[in-house]
């Protein structure tokens, strides 16, 4: 059902955890299944320096969470905003049709965390 890459990220998820004093935090619940993801970003200048996640969800949810943190590390926030759920699914070698919605979780949480950073940032300015 899942690709090897998905299973790898599920078994050894990268960047699990929290960041104290994160610059941006995003949490979303998946409208379709009720699963939940939270993402933490440390941002320096425009660059995502560090990233961590916590996920309550299915195998695909965990794997996409892990994958998205890998994908954004070192990217600018503008670049990160461009990452779509499709791109995450592709990076994992694809997801079963019925599991495509799971990749929304990671992409949405990421974008929400960046927006949260921007909100905080703008306020500080």
């Amino acid at each position, binding site marked *: 059902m899942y690709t090897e890459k998905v*299973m790898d990220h599920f078994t050894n998820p990268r960047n699990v955890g929290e960041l104290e004093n994160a610059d941006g935090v995003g*949490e979303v619940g998946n409208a379709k299944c*009720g699963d939940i993801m939270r993402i933490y970003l440390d941002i320096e200048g425009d660059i995502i320096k560090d990233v961590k996640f*916590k996920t*309550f969800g299915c195998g695909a949810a*965990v794997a996409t969470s892990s994958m998205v943190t890998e994908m954004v590390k070192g990217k600018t926030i503008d670049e990160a905003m461009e990452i779509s759920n499709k791109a995450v699914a592709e990076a994992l070698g694809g997801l079963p049709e*019925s599991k495509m919605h799971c990749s929304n979780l990671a992409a949405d949480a990421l974008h929400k965390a960046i927006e949260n950073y921007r909100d905080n940032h703008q306020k500080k300015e």
Partner: protein
Amino acid sequence: MRRVYLDHSATTPVDPEVASVMMTYYTEKYGNPSSVHGFGREAKQALEQARTQVAELIGANPKEITFTSGGTEADNLAILGTAEALRTKGKHIITSCIEHHAVLETCEHLEKNGFDLTVIPVDEEGVISVDAVQKAIRPDTILITVMHANNEVGSIQPIAEIGKLAKEHGIVFHVDAVQSLGKIPVNVDELNVDLLTVSSHKIYGPKGVGALYVRKGVRIVPLVHGGGQERKRRSGTENTPGIIGFGKACELAGQRMAEDAQKQIKLRDKLMNGILDRIEFVKVNGPLGEKRLPNNVNVSIRYVEGESLLLSLDMLGIAASSGSACTSGSLDPSHVLLGMGLIHEIAHGSLRFSLGRQNTEEEIDYVLEQLPKIVERLRMMSPLYDQ
């Protein structure tokens, strides 16, 4: 890799004795039971013997047994066949909120086509109240369809009493006994049923075979039309090897039921108590003791999600399920757990282990050793577990 199969409510391996009987009918005694010649007659004879074996296990007359392609078809035949037969008499059907999809979806199909449906709720243990059924009965009620034992939480229902009610009101009573057959006694007279569904692959028989018991005098309209096999109730060349396998499986189930139950209750309680001892924030779903199937363990493990649990167990060779096999591909948490009042999040983290004939103490020990580590790992990942 070690493989521990704890998903017997989804399906069972075919008993080697059953498989070897079937083999003969695939390659040597392969005649069509409708044929006049010797090949046909030997198949027909074995078919009728199987009918007797199934009938005996449920206390029925062989003529009251109609073979189908499985439990799902038997449920459909019972419900659609009764609705069609009695549509001029009434349009009201009663069922429960914890039925298998084969019953629920079929009832809902009828509802879309002009029938009235009352869905009885269950208590927090997953048991239907006889009182609620009584209150739901109307003058135009034609059918009550309720399961004997639930496939997810193992709760055994007060069938005999509901049957008595149905009889008093002259309402046709259908019972889905797919999960209870071979695990606890199933007797059509003691249970007061008119129609009863059984399935082969849940009792160490082959997949793709089931049967509907139809009490003498009860009329159902067939679902599948054609050559008129099965006393015109179910057309199509009979799956003789499958049916013969089912017959043998019923015979073995009758012989082994008491011993199987005793052994599995011990393993069940060891597993259930072991989980409660070793893992925090765990809730057992379904009743304890007599009202629970001997082979069912169902727990909700807070702060973790079901599929992640399953995948993690699977990587260690442990096969379990989250909700029923049919629903584990879907996104909604089990309608049974929600029906019992569990909130979405907790229902989501539920796990079913269903024991079988071959399971051992060592296998349970292995699960009890691995599961806490898995839960620990997943909780560390969970945004809900902040303790």
